């Protein structure tokens, strides 16, 4: 029982990332009808927003501290971040420590801008081109974006730690009456899951309860009719693209403490996120979320030693295997609407 719970927990953080990226992907597909291969790059840009913020916060000036000596006996050079000067040392340290969560406020406007520019500047021109062209041009864009990041940040992963309050693990099992020390779980992963849940909830609430969201949902169902009502659906769809970019970006920001960001992390996640979207059903938002968590958890179950002993290698291929089976037996996916790209 505790082993099962542990695997579910282990699957949650990856599942959250899949769900968040897939949510944006399927939102873009449902509204704009575009298959966006550059969505993984948005996730990656989000992660590098966190890197950027933590770099900005640690911009320092060098002072010579006469009270301390280095091993040669010279006065020690000490780097003093400007945040210390502005907020005092204690507050400054806290700000630096919380760089990743603070990046959210930086990432949201940046990602919305990136998304809107991408949609207006490029994707707009591909609405009426075949899906293959859309895949190709966004694939090219993804290469360009990741190369730009590589140029400025280098090819190596950049460790970006979580706030010290959330580093380390805690005994999750003991809190729920299991044997102590059976279910140890890192704090940050729980934070990530909670964060993902909040974002998903917010996106759904936005679509469900605002007029804007209602128009977008109507547009997803039947674009032409909504257009005939005199509603400028294109403008709203552009904003939706920005929103999808922000969701992917935030998923990236918060993922940095789990996996140090590198320039190709977006592509790594993209392939799996596409699989998630297909399993959930193209254009279905609940499907994307459900499939994201389902596949994340399934993946962690498949990595259990007992399972691998029975079917070797299953942990490497389980997601693809599920996708293949789903695509062949139920092309519209778990929760896809009838008639949406079923062929």
């Amino acid at each position: 029982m505790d082993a099962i719970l542990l695997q579910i927990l282990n699957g949650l953080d990856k599942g959250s990332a899949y769900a968040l990226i897939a949510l944006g992907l399927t939102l873009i597909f449902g509204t704009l009808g575009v298959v966006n291969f550059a969505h993984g790059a948005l996730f990656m840009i989000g992660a590098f927003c966190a890197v950027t913020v933590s770099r900005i916060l640690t911009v320092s000036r060098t002072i010579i501290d006469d009270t301390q000596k280095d091993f040669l006996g010279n006065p020690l050079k000490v780097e003093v971040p400007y945040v210390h000067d502005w907020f005092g040392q204690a507050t400054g340290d806290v700000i630096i420590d919380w760089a990743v969560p603070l990046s959210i406020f930086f990432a949201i406007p940046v990602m919305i801008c990136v998304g809107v520019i991408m949609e207006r500047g490029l994707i707009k021109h591909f609405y009426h081109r075949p899906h293959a062209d859309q895949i190709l041009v966004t694939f090219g864009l993804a290469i360009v974006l990741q190369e730009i990041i590589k140029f400025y940040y280098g090819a190596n992963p950049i460790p970006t730690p979580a706030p010290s309050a959330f580093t380390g693990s805690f005994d999750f099992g003991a809190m729920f009456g299991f044997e102590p020390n059976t279910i140890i779980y890192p704090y940050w992963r729980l934070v990530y899951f909670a964060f993902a849940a909040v974002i998903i909830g917010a996106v759904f609430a936005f679509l469900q309860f605002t007029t804007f969201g209602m128009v977008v949902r109507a547009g997803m169902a039947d674009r032409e009719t909504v257009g005939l009502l005199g509603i400028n659906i294109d403008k709203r769809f552009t904003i939706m693209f920005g929103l999808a970019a922000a969701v992917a970006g935030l998923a990236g920001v918060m993922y940095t403490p789990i996996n140090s960001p590198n320039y190709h992390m977006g592509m790594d996640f993209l392939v799996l996120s596409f699989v998630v979207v297909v399993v959930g059903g193209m254009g279905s938002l609940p499907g994307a979320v459900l499939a994201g968590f389902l596949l994340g958890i399934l993946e962690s179950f498949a990595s259990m030693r007992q399972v691998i002993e029975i079917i070797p290698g299953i942990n490497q291929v389980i997601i693809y295997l599920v996708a293949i089976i789903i695509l062949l037996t139920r092309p519209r996916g778990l929760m896809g609407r009838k008639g949406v790209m079923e062929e």
Partner: protein
Amino acid sequence: MLGLQKKDASLLLLVFALTMLAPFILNPFPEGSGWAQFNAGYPDLMQRFVIFGIFAIGFNILFGLTGYLSFGHAAFLGVGSYSAVWMFKLLSMNVIPAIALAVITSGLFALLIGFISLRRSGIYFSILTLAFAQMSFALAYSVLTPITGGETGLQLALDDPRILDSISAAAGGNIPVPSLFGIEMRDSSEWSVGSWVFTFNNGYYFAAFIMLCSFYLSIRIFRSPFGLMLRAVKSNQQRLNYTGLNTRPYTLAAFVISGMYAGLAGGLMAAMDPLAGAERMFWTASGEVVLMTILGGVGTLIGPVLGAGMIKYMENILSKINSDILHTWFAFLPDGLEDFIVTIIYPFIGKGWHLTLGLLFMMVVIFLPGGLVEGGQKIAKLFKRGKKDDDGAKAADATTPAE
């Protein structure tokens, strides 16, 4: 000639001339000169040109003719490489059986994957092929290590059985190298003319010969009734179904043929350098052949070869340029301007060549859906316009796809 129309025959002749004279054409700069680094006429790179040319020609038979975008073609390349290396290990260092097995196994593998993937079309087909290729990659990397060598890759060993040539292997203490009836693939002869050095590599000429055969075959396929049906699949599947034709065997045949081309390329890669690794099957490798085909001109005969050559040239030559070289080039400019220009260009060359590639690729998809070939035709048309104005109209009505 050879059952081809005049236009196709001259294209084949052109490609023949280019590949045979490649050691000269690709080595235009004398040794020791500042430009020598742009020489691409060394065996390793020339082999890659033709091998990836084969890969792209095959991919084009599927994507260019039927419009089915496979994102998992590297899997067949990988299977081809593994089969060839196993043939070297078990049977003989002769490349013929190795390549034959590579083509056969990749064909069978393509038959299996194609049979399943082609039940869906469009984006779903792309994702299915991607999923299969990623699965193959993951398995080759982990569980199938006894067959694939896992992370280190599959390599030859001194004590491999090599049933057919056990006698000669016992004589030498080294691992034998792949050969064609005694002609070693890695052997080259050099010819120095003044300060130029031209290298003629056995492996290159062998691969080039096979590439010419594949190219010839692809021309035949393009111009055949089968090719016509494949183009009809791309144009309107519905009409084809209501014309009494079963599209599934046509697309499956195209898939298997292009998988065999990929296996052939993989087998040749192993023949040039007898090792195989799982990274050849990774999905970025599948993406690369998509880039080659689109860049050169999808659905055209020569386009994929051009695209393959261009990308491999960029990968090997453009990536070598560093900022020092740039500074020497622009040394004639005033210092400030020199630094400025070098700063601007620098991100696009050297390690950043992927950026150039990505941008180029996007430009092609956006503005030149016919790739470099279409670009070339447009330029040619511009020059012709002065002479004959109605030529363009005739070219637009051409019944056969452009070369």
